[in-house]
């Protein structure tokens, strides 16, 4: 028990340390990693654990970001108060969309959610909402300074604030994923028919998982908006949804640490790709992605757990269920 407490304290120290060791730009990057990690955690709940592929989580990220921006500029709410509101609104939207959409499975659900990712940036430009969203011009968000008395720079404070929210949400997810909900979700992912036969209300669990997932990703959007200090439709193109999905798979679809690793991939690898070859960063990015998936089929988190074991093993018959999107690549703790 004492060893565990020590480990937790040490872990928190390691996470807090960058605030006092790194400069503004690097801290900003870590703040974005924390925000993306929460977004990918949200996606992991619905895709990693429940096995429902969503290519539309960028839409929830966008809605969360806009809720924070609008509440802060038009309603003069303090930044911290906008986070729970963004989460609740996103959960509501997630529930409303999840209700019909989750009756679909596999590629059909992926396409419906992708449609959401494509539609949201255009809806943000819509005239009817322009009074709030600012149309194509977007909204400039005034980021919070550290509370008086704390001798912290804005970057330090934003990093620590984002980190605290992220730790809270990861803790919540960890607790949730230990209980009945988690067993029901995994059962649905692995054997939907058996799950139903065992008395699990499949539609209800899926819809709830989708709502919780949207909540997490929405709060991540709020955190991202505070860090970037600006929201505009161009910030949330369909590519964002794809990037979150890539982060999820690379990190390891069914693991909490995987969400953090995936977020780091999303944040850092495009820059690395650009440094390798300026004229075709997309090619380098693609090659790194293929290599990651080839050598670490269960994601980085899976590889760390099992050691590098080379190319993806052949799928066993038991894992070939229709609702399982990535075959052998999703790994369960």
């Amino acid at each position, binding site marked *: 028990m004492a060893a565990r407490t020590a480990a937790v304290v040490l872990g928190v120290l390691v996470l807090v340390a960058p605030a006092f060791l790194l*400069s*503004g*730009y*690097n801290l*900003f*990057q870590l703040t*974005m990693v924390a925000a993306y990690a929460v977004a990918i955690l949200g996606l992991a709940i619905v895709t990693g654990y429940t096995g429902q592929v969503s290519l539309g989580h960028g839409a929830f990220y966008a809605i969360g970001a806009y809720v924070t921006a609008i509440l802060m500029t038009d309603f003069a709410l303090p930044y911290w108060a906008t986070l729970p509101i963004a989460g609740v609104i996103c959960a509501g939207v997630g529930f409303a969309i999840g209700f019909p959409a989750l009756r679909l499975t596999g590629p059909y659900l992926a396409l419906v959610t992708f449609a959401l990712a494509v539609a949201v940036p255009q809806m943000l*430009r*819509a*005239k009817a909402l*322009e009074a709030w969203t600012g*149309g*194509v*011009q*977007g909204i*400039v968000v005034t980021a919070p300074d550290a509370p008086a008395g704390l001798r912290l720079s804005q970057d330090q404070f934003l990093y620590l604030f984002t980190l605290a929210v992220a730790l809270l949400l990861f803790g919540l997810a960890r607790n949730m994923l230990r209980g009945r909900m988690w067993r029901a979700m995994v059962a649905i992912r692995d054997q939907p028919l058996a799950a139903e036969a065992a008395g699990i209300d499949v539609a209800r669990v899926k819809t709830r998982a989708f709502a919780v997932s949207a909540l997490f990703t929405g709060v991540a959007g709020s955190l*991202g908006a505070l860090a*970037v*200090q*600006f*929201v*505009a*439709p*161009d*910030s949330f*193109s369909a*590519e964002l949804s794809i990037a979150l999905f890539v982060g999820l798979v690379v990190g390891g679809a069914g693991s909490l640490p995987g969400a953090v690793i995936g977020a780091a991939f999303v944040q850092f690898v*495009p*820059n690395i790709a*650009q440094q390798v070859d*300026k*004229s075709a*960063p*997309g090619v380098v990015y693609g090659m790194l992605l293929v290599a990651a998936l080839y050598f670490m089929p269960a994601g980085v988190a899976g590889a760390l757990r099992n050691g590098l074991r080379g190319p993806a093993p052949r799928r066993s018959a038991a894992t070939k269920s229709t609702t399982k999107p990535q075959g052998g690549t999703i790994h369960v703790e």
Partner: protein
Amino acid sequence: MLNRRTLLTAAAATVAAPAIIARAEDMPGVTATEIKIGNTNPHSGPASAYGAIANADAAYFRMVNDQGGINGRRINFISYDDGYSPPRTVQQTRRLVEQDGVAFIFNGLGTPCQTAVHAYMNSHKIPQLFVATGADKWGDYAHFPWTMGWQPSYRTEAAIYGKYLLKAKPDAKVAVLYQNDDFGKDYLIGLKDGLGEHYGKMVIKEVSYETTDPTIDSQAVTLQGTGADVLVTAATPKWAAQTIRKIAELNWHPLHFMTNVSVSVGAVLKPAGEANATGLITGAYQKDATDPQWANDAGMKEWLAFMRKYMPGADITDNNHTYGFGVSMTMAQVLKQCGPDLSRANIMKQAASLKDLEIPVLLPGIRVNTSSTNFHPIRAMQLQRWSGKGWVLFGEVISA
């Protein structure tokens, strides 16, 4: 403690400052042999065609370095990809400023992208020079003294149409069709600038459309019904093409001014029907790389020689390359004017002190001028008319 003495000392220092040669610590991004300049541009993604501009900027500074640099310093131009995504613009701009330690940011592209770093650059007092976007807000020297645009803004363009109308057709009955957003509304403001007190009398109808409208047919019919003989259209390419086609179908032939956002032959005039567009008028400020009249022009020859040597294989019909050449030359002039004092304050001061700078790729008579109260470097255009086959310049250069 801010007391009278420190105030006096500060005042004395300000007065004495020009006489003191700036020390290295006052000049971030500058060493005895180098000036580091940052840039963000969509090198990847859907807007990556604009990447040509940053490539031309980089090529121009290579040429400057080959010719010995500026006042003995070579230019180190760093351009990062932001994929036209504002969060990535923030990230890359901060990387340039805080990690690479650039002296300033030059020619960052995209209205939303540059808006995302507008406050950051100004609160840190770092020049955000010659941004590559047409919005009017980059000339707001009172609120954003560290930011400056380059090309004529939409508002400037509309003011020029207004000025031309006052002179050439003072009895005109003007109808305006505009996209209902900041882009479209900039044209209304500009027309008011140009027509002044005559706006209320001359403009008889303003009609807007939404980008969600499938067609502008009803707007065109409404405008024709007003009996207007001049139409000013501030529409993005898809609706511009529809407008040109529809008014031809209605057999309505007003003097038609079209925003220069929507005058591409491939994207607007061909879909609208090149014959339908005959007589269409727009404003221009650059020499068109495909226009045969510049075949023997000294300025365009200079540009072509640059292209052959520093961008071999690049598309010489792409006007992004003339744009990059022109804006980089403006930047080089600012740095030359700075002399030995390459502090951020002096770079900004010199950017606001350009006098009648001639740029070879700009139309004859259009010069770059700035001052402490003019952060719109190019405020003049010449009108051109679509002949059915090509754009033909006419009349004089008009200043807003």
